C-alpha cells in the first residue's frame, strides 16, 4: 500500500503540530492558574503592591511586549518561505526573529535584575507572585530561543520534511508564548494601569 492508494488526499496536521498543541495546552493551563493565583492574592490584600514596594514600571514592559509580539511576523514569514521551499528566506526570517527575541530576553533579564535590586521575592506575597510569574514567562522565552538555535543549526543542512514540520511547530510555540506574554505583562502591570 502506498500513499497513492488513498483516494482522499485531505490534509491532516502533522504529529509535530499535535505534540506542540498538547504542550501549549498544558503550559497555557499552567499560566492560567498562576494568573488566577495573582488575582486571588491581590483581592486578599488592601494595598497592592504593599507599602514599601514600588509600583511596576509601565513604559518599558509595554514597549518590550510590542517587540516580542511583533516577532510573530518574521516567524510566520519563515514558515511561509519554508512551505514555498525558499531555504534562504526561511533561514533569514528565522534568524531575524531570533535576534529580536534574544534582544527582548536580554532586556527582560536586565529588568528582572534591576527589580531584584529594589525589592526581594521574600518580602511579601506580592513580590513572590511577581517574580514567579515573570520568571516562568521568561523561562518560556528562553526555551523558545533554544528551539530557534536548534532549528537554525539543523537548517544549515537544508530542508527535510521533518525540519519543515519542526519549523511550523516552533512558530506555533512562539505564537503561544507571545499570547502568554501578553497576558502575563498585563497582569503584572495591572496595579499601575
Amino acid at each position, binding site marked *: *500500500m502506498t500513499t497513492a492508494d488513498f483516494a482522499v488526499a485531505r490534509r491532516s496536521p502533522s504529529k509535530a503540530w499535535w505534540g506542540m498543541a*498538547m504542550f501549549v495546552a498544558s503550559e497555557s*493551563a499552567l499560566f492560567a*492558574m498562576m494568573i488566577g*493565583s495573582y488575582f*486571588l492574592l491581590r483581592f486578599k490584600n488592601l494595598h497592592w503592591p504593599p507599602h514599601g514596594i514600588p509600583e511596576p514600571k509601565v513604559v518599558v514592559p509595554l514597549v518590550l511586549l510590542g517587540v516580542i509580539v511583533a516577532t510573530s511576523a518574521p516567524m510566520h514569514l519563515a514558515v511561509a518561505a519554508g512551505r514555498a521551499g525558499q531555504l534562504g528566506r526561511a533561514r533569514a526570517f528565522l534568524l531575524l526573529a531570533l535576534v529580536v527575541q534574544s534582544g527582548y530576553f536580554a532586556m527582560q533579564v536586565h529588568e528582572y535584575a534591576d527589580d531584584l535590586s529594589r525589592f526581594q521575592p*521574600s518580602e511579601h506575597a506580592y513580590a513572590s507572585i511577581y517574580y514567579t510569574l515573570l520568571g516562568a514567562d521568561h523561562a518560556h522565552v528562553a526555551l523558545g530561543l533554544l528551539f530557534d538555535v*536548534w532549528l537554525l543549526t539543523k537548517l544549515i543542512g537544508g530542508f527535510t520534511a521533518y525540519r519543515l514540520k519542526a519549523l511550523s511547530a516552533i512558530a506555533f510555540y512562539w505564537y503561544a508564548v507571545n499570547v502568554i506574554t501578553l497576558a502575563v505583562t498585563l497582569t503584572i502591570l495591572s496595579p499601575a494601569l
Partner: protein
Amino acid sequence: MWAERPGLLGWLTTTDHKRIGLLYFWTTLAFFGAGGVEALLLRAQLARANNDVLGPDTYDQLFSMHGLTMIFWFIIPMTTGAFGNYLIPLMIGARDMAFPKLNALSFWLFLGSGLLVYTGLFLGSGPNAGWFDYVPLASRLYDPGRNIEFYALGLLFNGISSTITAANFIVTILRLRAPGMSFNRIPLFCFAFLAASFGLLFALPSLSVDLIFLFLDRNLGMHFFDPSHGGSTLLWQHLFWFFGHPEVYILIVPAFGIATEIIPAFTQRKMIAFPLVAIAELLVVFIGFGVWAHHMFADGIPAVTLVFFAGATAMVVIPSTIQVFAWSSTLFTGRPRFNTPLLFIIGFILFFVIGGLTGVMFVAIPFTQQVTDTYFVVAHFHYIIFGAAVFPIFAGMYYWFPKVTGRMYFERPGQISFWIIFLGTNLLFFPMHIVGLLGMPRRVYTYPGEMGWTAYNLAESVGGAITLVGILLLFGNLVVSYRRGPLAPPDPWHGPTLEWSIPSPPPEYNFAVIPHVSSAYPNWDLADREADRRRLAEGVGMLDHGHEQVVSTLADGEPVEIVRMPHSSPWPILLALAVSGAFAVLVTEKYGVAAVFGVLALFALVGWHWQEEES
C-alpha cells in the same frame, strides 16, 4: 514484519506500547503492594483503642504515603499506563502510540518519581501532611524536615510523566485510528481514556503551580501561603482541589471504560445508549472542573460560593446516572454470563451506586460541615476509589489476561476471589460510615476506648485482612494460570473490539493487515474481518516495509498518510535519568548540581532529535 530486541537492553530501550504497558503493570503492582502494606499497618494500629503498633510520626507518614501511592503510583498509572498503553492502540487498530519514544519517557519518569518519594519514606522523611498536604501544617514552620520536599518534588515529577501520557493518548486516539473508525465508532473504552487524558492535561498544571509555590515558600522564603505577609492559605486549597476533584474523576472514568468493554462481551449485546454514554464519560470530567470548592465547605468561604459549588456538584449526578442505567439495562436485556470479570463489574456498579449516594449527601452543605474530616468521608471515597475504580481494574486483569498472556485463568478460584474481596471490602469500609457519624476523626493515630468506636474499628481491620486474602487469591490464580493455564484462543469471550481479532498474545506489529472498520464493535462485524483476512491472503494493505502506521482524519477516520514509527531508542531512559537526578538533588537544595543535570537533560533532548524521523 519486525521483532522486538530480546534481553534486558531490549526492555530498557523499547518503545513498543505493549512492552511499556507491561513495564507499567509490574511497576504499579509493586507500588500497589507497598500501598497495601501501608494500609494494613494502619488497620493494625487502629484495630484496638490506645494501640501502640505505630507511633504518631510513623502513622502520619504511612497514611500520607498510602493515599499518595494508591492515587499517583497505582490507580492512575495502572489504568492509563498499563491498561491504556496496552489496549488503546489494539482497540483503534493501530500499531503503536502516536509518540512511542515519549511513551517510554513517561514510564521511566514515573518509575523515577516513585523511587524518589519512597527514598524519602525509607529515610524516615516521607510525606507526612496527608495527600492534600494543607498549609500551614505543611509549611516550614510546622514541618521543618525534608518530608514535604519529597512530597512536592515527587508529585511535580510524577505530574510530568502523567501529562506526557495524557498528551500521547489524546493524539493517538484522535490521529491513529484504523480507516473507517470515525468519531462515532470509537470504542467507549477509548472515549473514557480520552476524557481522563483531557482531565489530566488541564488539571495537573494547577497542582504543579501549587507545588512550585509550596517549594518556593519553604526553600526560598517566599510568602504565597503565609497570611502574615499577604499570602493566603486558601490559595493552596483552591489550587489543590482545582486539580484534586477532576483527579477523582480521572481515577474513575477509565474504570467506566473497562466496564463498557466487559458488559457487552459477557452479555453479547451492544451497550444501550452508546452516544449518551460516550457524552456522559466526557461530561463527568468536564463538570468535575467546576466543583472543587465542595472540598472546602468547612473553610468559612462565603455562603453564596458554597451554594454555587453544591449546585454544580449535584449536576455530576446526571452523567453518572446515565451510565449506571446504561450499564444495568444492558445487563438486564442481554444474556449475561457471570464469569469473574462480569462479577467484578457488577460489584463495581453496586459500590459506585453506594459511594455515589453518600457523595450526593455531601451536596447538603450543613451535613458536609458536620462530617468533614470524619471517617464518613473516608468511607465515601473508599467506596468510590476501591469499589468503583479498583474493582474494574481487577475485572480487567481477568478479562484481558488471555489476550496478554495467551493463557486462560482458572474460573472457579477467580469467582471465589471476587466473593472474598467483595465481602472483605464491605466489612472494611461500611463500618467507617457509622464511626464517622459517631464522630471519629480521620488521620488520628489512636483513640480512647470509651468512645464506642472499638468494635467497628476491629471489624474494619478484620475486613482488611479478608480483602488481603482475596487479593492474594486473585494474584495467585493469575500467576498459576500464567504457568499452567490452558492455552487461550484469540477470542475466548467473543469480544466486541479489535484486540480480539488478533492472536493471543498479540504479535509485535499488532495487525498484520490494517483493519477497516464500519462500527464501534468491529470484531462483531464478521464480513469486515473476513475482508481483512482476504486482503492479508492477497497481500493488500499490509504496510510491511518496517514500522509503518496509517494516519487518519480527526472526524471521519479517513486514511491520509503513512508514517514510519521509531523502533527502539536509548534516549527516553537517558533523559529520564537526567531528570531524576535533577529532582533528587533539588530535594537537598543543591541548585547548582540540579542545573548540571538540567544541562544533561538538554543534551539528551538533542540526542533524541538527532535522527530525523521519515514520513
